[in-house]
């Protein structure tokens, strides 16, 4: 039998391909994405990461073995300190100050996605938590690697974006989470795997919606 994550990938493939083909992602690949549009991503992703870190905190709290507990704790530390610091440095290359990042307001899609993630992490078991967070960690690694197969854009900032997500560290993190998902799914009966698949597909859709949110811009309707 193929690994469970391969089943997840096959089920979500149309959504993942749509992400790759999204004009926002293609704009990064070509290096011609409007800076104003990209700034939206920088701010929204910064806000996203703070909530994403909470999911790792729940992961550490719910871990069923020491190795997993340590990994989630390390991921929490990396997200909260290293990755967010990198994000601040990266934002400054687009003229966005740390104050502006902090003052940013989550747009509706981002709010809904992160609330869904944190709620699933709080209420679900560890397998559900991993199924929900995987499309972000694995998806960015997958997109990074796919874009890295082509020539880098001339704009160094977009080239660096691709390098970040195609990097060995990012690929390894995604790989660890895939193995974790497969390990947890191996002890999950088939009808409950459907729940894991549903969570994975929902987060995959939210990932596409995140690009779309940044591409079009978003605001609270009232």
């Amino acid at each position: 039998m193929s690994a469970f994550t391969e089943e997840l990938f096959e089920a979500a493939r149309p959504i993942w391909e749509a992400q790759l083909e999204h004009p926002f992602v293609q704009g990064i690949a070509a290096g011609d994405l409007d800076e104003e549009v990209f700034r939206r991503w920088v701010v929204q992703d910064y806000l996203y990461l703070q909530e994403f870190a909470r999911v790792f905190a729940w992961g550490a709290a719910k871990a069923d073995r020491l190795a997993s507990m340590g990994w989630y704790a390390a991921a929490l530390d990396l997200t909260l300190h290293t990755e967010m610091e990198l994000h601040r440095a990266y934002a400054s290359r687009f003229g966005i100050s740390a104050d502006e990042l902090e003052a940013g307001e989550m747009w509706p899609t981002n709010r809904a996605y992160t609330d869904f993630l944190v709620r699933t992490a709080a209420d679900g078991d560890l397998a559900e938590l991993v199924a929900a967070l995987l499309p972000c960690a694995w998806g960015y690694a997958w997109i990074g690697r796919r874009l890295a197969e082509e020539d880098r854009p001339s704009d160094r900032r977009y080239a660096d974006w691709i390098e970040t997500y195609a990097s060995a560290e990012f690929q390894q993190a995604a790989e660890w989470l895939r193995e974790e998902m497969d390990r947890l799914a191996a002890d999950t009966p088939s009808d409950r795997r459907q729940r894991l698949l549903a969570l994975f597909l929902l987060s995959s859709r939210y990932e596409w919606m995140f690009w779309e949110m940044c591409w079009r811009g978003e605001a609270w309707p009232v």
Partner: protein
Amino acid sequence: MLARVGPLWEEMLRHPFLVETRDGALPDATFARWMRQDYLFVEAAIPFMGTLLAKSPAGHRKPLADAIAAFHSELGLFRERAAAVGVDLDGVWPSFVCHAYVQFLLATGALASYAEGFTVLYAAEKAYHDSWKVVKSGIDPGSPWIGFVENWASDAFAGWVRWLETELDGLGDQAGRAERARMADLFETTVRYEIAFWELAYGRAEGWPGIREVA
């Protein structure tokens, strides 16, 4: 799971607290000590049910919500009985066993899977039902503690425990091997706490480690 804890379960049902309550031989002060601590435990069972409710499938929500209401009724029963026999339920400091059991309950509710939390609920409720049936079989109907017997040994409570049992079997069928093993461990831990809880009525296993007097 019941088979695995068989000897422990028998030990629980043979406990002098139950036998002496049934026979009217238990000193009032001993019963009062149990009552003061169990009141704290029932209070804590309500937020525990809240954590289960948050994780529960739709079909479980009404029974769990009804159980929260039932816990409130139990608190009323404790207050009514305590007032009748002159026991003060306010300002009670939890014994170590009571405190540890409550933390176990809430930690399981917060961090474990729904099936695991549900296991603890079933174990505690089943333990109470079976224990108070022991008391019921021979207690003087005029006993001041008859209200507790009528609560936990009642047909209505038996129906609730049967529902828990059926649903737990279903959850067990859907659980993987590792989760089922954790459920069995949680079941046994809960039974051990239940026995320790009868013990604390006698002032044994009541204190905090290293602390001579309990306030």
